[in-house]
């Protein structure tokens, strides 16, 4: 930040700052500052001033000038007593020492101090610039009030600042009504990678966790949820209303949904299953039948199966129709006329042939497969021995029950 040293102000400096009326008599000292997000997301709308026994509320347009050396000078003395207001975000009470989400850094941080910019227009007002975390702000907090403000600035100058711009700060609030009143939106959270969002959610307390998972887009929530530790998954799903939980589980891939639901008490998972849509419901119910430490418990029921005579051109067309499955597809499976799986074609092979080639000619020489009841340890052995990316799980009649992919195996190995 290259601003001139008198154009910015720290919240800890505003605390206790004297407030003067038009006749330059001191009315009181600043106790807190508040933003009203619905009116303006960053401007300090109110100062709460302690005058005798009660507090007064000073609006931003009643202030003539603000400065570190001279305090706050009013332009209008018609002041009203302070009444707590649900639409106000009070910096001292609601922001300082609380946890917020740093969307840019993708982590949860604790607020030590806030930096304002002093805007000089027809009157002075403050705008929140950034939130300070880190050692510099700790030093400032500790020495403020003990040592004169100008000295505090000098002392903290050599230390690297550690701040997050206000636009990237997402406030965490468990109460939905208050979230509305503070205009808290989680749009930026939805743009994060699910794994990063999962990390953030894991660091918050239970009420805040559920607040976030319940409000963001279900698809994003589903992806994030599948990256979260299974026990915490269960705790989150239990804390949400069944309809909301079902919305999220609907968006998860069936094997992840089955894993998540499997951790829950029967009663709770039954409630959620009741609220789910029928299409994902069938797959999930099927997978829930299997023990989690068997092939059946690891597999996913979504896979692309093509008749073995399909030509490459047709195969490509079919792939385009199933775009949503493509992310986790490494191998296409081939079936004969009665549905028995006869071959597997790694996607890379599709690049080497011409459009008329039949899929069965591109198939791997040997089909490695397993059964739903196979032990977890044997499955991981197969993956290692045959260098597999995907392992088909076949029913007794040879039809495809599901597919186990490498990421499932990695998860299993890590949790051993």
């Amino acid at each position, binding site marked *: 930040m290259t601003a001139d040293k008198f154009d910015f102000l720290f919240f800890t400096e505003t605390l206790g700052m004297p407030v003067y009326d038009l006749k330059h008599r001191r009315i009181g000292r600043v106790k807190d500052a508040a933003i009203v997000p619905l009116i303006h997301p960053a401007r300090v709308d109110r100062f709460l001033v302690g005058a005798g026994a009660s507090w007064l509320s000073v609006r931003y347009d009643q202030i003539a000038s603000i400065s570190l050396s001279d305090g706050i000078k009013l332009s209008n003395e018609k002041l009203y007593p302070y009444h707590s207001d649900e639409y106000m975000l009070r910096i001292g009470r609601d922001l300082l*020492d609380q946890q917020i989400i740093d969307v840019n850094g993708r982590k949860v*941080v*604790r607020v030590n101090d806030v930096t304002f910019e002093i805007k000089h227009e027809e009157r002075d007002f403050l705008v929140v610039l950034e939130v300070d975390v880190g050692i510099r702000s*700790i030093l400032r907090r*500790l020495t403020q009030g003990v040592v004169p403000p100008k000295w505090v600035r000098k002392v903290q100058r050599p230390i690297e600042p550690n701040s997050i711009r206000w636009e990237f700060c997402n406030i965490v609030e468990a109460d939905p009504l208050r979230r509305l009143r503070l205009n808290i939106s989680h749009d930026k959270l939805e743009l994060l990678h699910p794994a990063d969002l999962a990390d953030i959610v894991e660091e918050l*307390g239970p009420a805040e*966790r559920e607040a976030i998972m319940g409000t963001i887009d279900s698809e994003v929530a589903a992806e994030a949820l599948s990256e979260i530790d299974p*026990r915490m998954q269960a*705790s989150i799903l*239990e804390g949400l209303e069944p309809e909301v939980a079902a919305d999220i589980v609907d968006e998860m891939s069936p094997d992840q949904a089955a894993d998540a639901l499997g951790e829950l008490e029967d009663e709770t998972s039954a409630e959620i299953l009741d609220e789910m849509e029928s299409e994902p419901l069938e797959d999930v119910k099927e997978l829930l039948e299997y023990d989690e430490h068997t092939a059946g418990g690891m597999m996913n029921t979504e896979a692309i199966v093509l008749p073995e005579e399909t030509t490459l051109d047709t195969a490509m067309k079919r792939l385009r129709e199933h775009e949503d499955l493509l992310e986790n597809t490494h191998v296409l499976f081939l079936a004969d006329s009665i549905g028995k799986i006869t071959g597997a074609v790694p996607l890379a092979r599709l690049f080497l042939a011409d459009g008329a080639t039949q899929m069965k000619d591109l198939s791997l020489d040997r089909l490695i497969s397993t059964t739903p009841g196979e032990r977890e340890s044997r499955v991981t052995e197969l993956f290692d021995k045959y260098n597999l990316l995907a392992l088909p799980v076949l029913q007794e009649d040879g039809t495809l029950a599901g597919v186990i992919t490498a990421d499932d195996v990695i998860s299993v190995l890590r949790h051993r």
Partner: protein
Amino acid sequence: MPDLIARFKRHIVVFLAVLGPGFITAMVDNDSGGIYTYSQAGARWLYLPLWTLLPITIALIVAQEMCSRMGAVTGKGLSDLIREEFGLRMTFGIMILLVLANLTNIVAEFAGVATALDIFGVSKFISVPIAAVLVWFLAVKGNYQSVEKIFLFACVIYVSYIAAGILVRPDWKEAAINSVRPQLMMDSGYITMLIAMVGTTIAPWMQFYLQAAVVEKGVTPKEYRESRFEVIVGCILTSVIAFFIIVACAGAYRDHPTDIQSAKEAALALKPFGEYAVLLFSAGLLNASVFAACILPLSTAYSVCEGLGFESGVSRTWNEAPIFYWLYTLLIVIGAGIVIIPRFPLVQMILLSQVLNGMLLPFILIFMIILINKKNLMHEWINPPAYNAVAWITVIVVIGMTLALTGITIRNPQ
């Protein structure tokens, strides 16, 4: 009937799932300083001190239960809660005291390692550095689950004290009678001993560790009933171990009650009852000291980083969480280093750790009670009025005893 069995089975499953935090914290209460205090009590006063174990257990249960409840309901550690409710300045002050108090405790643990191995003739210049390195690696290279398993195993080794207690063939009738009959004498040494027993029971760091461990374990309010049971079981077992430590020393010194200066004296006094008794006692001391030496520095680093908002966690690299790793390493290095300095007054260090703990504990206990009574934090898990009364009484008594101990220790540093 089958429904009852099914529910019982479920309770057992959940209990095993949450087993860890309460148990470990309670057991590690019998660390090197604790063993020294109990040994002293038994050696000088034989079976008389046993009646204090019951009130001590109750006090321990009250304090532990509150912290584990807060951890399960809020999902946050004690430093986090103190920071959020009492602000940065208060947190900073507490953290400084915590680091100092814990540092002296760490010194006491490494001193315990040195003492235990000294009994077998291993010089402290060898035993302490090796222990320090081992301790450092365990936390840095292990993850919480595997380390917890090791700790639970260490808890089992405490059984050695039960064995030692039995080997000295104590007067069981005396022991039993004294366990329930309060004895008060106007002997200043006796009073000091009583105060020391209560004063060293609850250390501030135990509260921070327990709450953080409960959060780390992922205990939710749903599993809290089993978690509370686990905490209570841990506290009772720890008192059982303390019972046997006192009994072992009482049995060893039955003919010549002595004011002992170190746990080594106590161990050697068991010689007439067989080499095994000495071995078991020393093994117990070594186990307890290493155990506590593993937990203390780590817990301190976590608490401080949590409270001040620094990155923390052994899953992060040194670059990602520098303050955490530096603090952790320095605590071990300085702690072990002080023990190695020749002729360093170790007994003074143990007494100093008691004093610092004593100064910090009142704040921690009072904060705990304030926090646990906040409705917006604890919702329906807030303290019921009757429990609040018990909690306040316990806290006031413990604070009183601790301040008394602090006062006495400052006035007569032996």
